[in-house]
């Protein structure tokens, strides 16, 4: 069983203090806040609506339901 939540920082991410996006390792939950509620709304050729996916994991369902209640889904109807 891997423990991705504690995985090492990505060595390719910019870490120089002069980089405009210098990053410390980020928590998955902060990343998901942005990836699930942000991003330009486009529909790729495959239609994916994360809010519709029956997420088995209770922790993820909690996060995603709270996202979809408060913001329009980034995966709009095609």
């Amino acid at each position, binding site marked *: 069983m891997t423990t*991705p939540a504690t995985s090492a920082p990505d060595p390719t991410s910019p870490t120089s203090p002069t980089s405009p*996006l210098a990053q410390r390792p980020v928590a998955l939950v902060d990343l998901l806040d*942005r990836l699930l509620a942000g991003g330009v709304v486009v529909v*790729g050729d495959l239609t994916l609506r994360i809010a519709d996916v029956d*997420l088995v994991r209770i922790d993820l369902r909690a996060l995603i339901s709270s996202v979809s*209640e408060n913001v329009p889904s980034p995966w709009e109807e095609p």
Partner: protein
Amino acid sequence: MTRELEYAYGVVRDTGAPDPLPPGVLGVAGGPVRAVRHRGLAVLASPVPAEEFEEGPLRARLEDLAWLEEVARAHQRVVNAAGAVGCVVPVGMATVCRGEEGLRRMLEEGHPRFTGALDRLEGRVEWGVKVYAGPVGAEAAAGGPAPAPAGAPSPPPAKASSRGLSGRDYLRRRTAQRRAQEQRWQRAEDGARLVHETLAGLAERARLHPPQDGRLSGVTDRNVLNAAYLVPHEHSEGFAARVRELADRLAGLRVELTGPWAPYSFVAPDPADRARAAS
């Protein structure tokens, strides 16, 4: 016959430079990331295996937190690398197209939105700020000027002592505990409001994300503010310094700063701007 699936990360301006990314950036599933250009825009993409990213398998995989994390981190890695050299507009996670043709179609259809977002977000970064209500007794532990709350329950073992309590004592104690809890949350919410109003005044735009669920974040303190702020790059350090200053002033609250991020939370136009444009 299906073409290879392509995972899209974000859109940049096509400046005519040979490659908008530093060499060697790997995407989801270790695929090499390249730019596919169309009408002055370039989408960063990499090939992904159909057995994971066709709609059916993708649906199933999204329920796998470890898999989701891998994809999320690869997505961020590419957006970050692009953001280090210029403005990037991230697309939603798991935007998958069929072949380069599909990627160009996406740029064609989204052209006004992408160019609009690039214009608005050029030279800006996003900071994340979270405020947590501290645990019981944090006010005292913080060493701040705030006195320990009058109703704070004493720490000794509750089980042993509660056996000796009369019913009325027990109820009185429960009421005091509840009141202390309510006061703590009220203070936390007041603090969160102060933080948000102060920072929103310094930022170009602000956006509230839903408070994080402790089951996912692993943080036991209650998250009372989960906000993102869009800040011009030249004010970025000053903004971060201001957050740290606020954090020091707020006894009993914990303030957490993340970033700077690519402007994920601000790719959609400001509703206020849209309203102004329509009027």
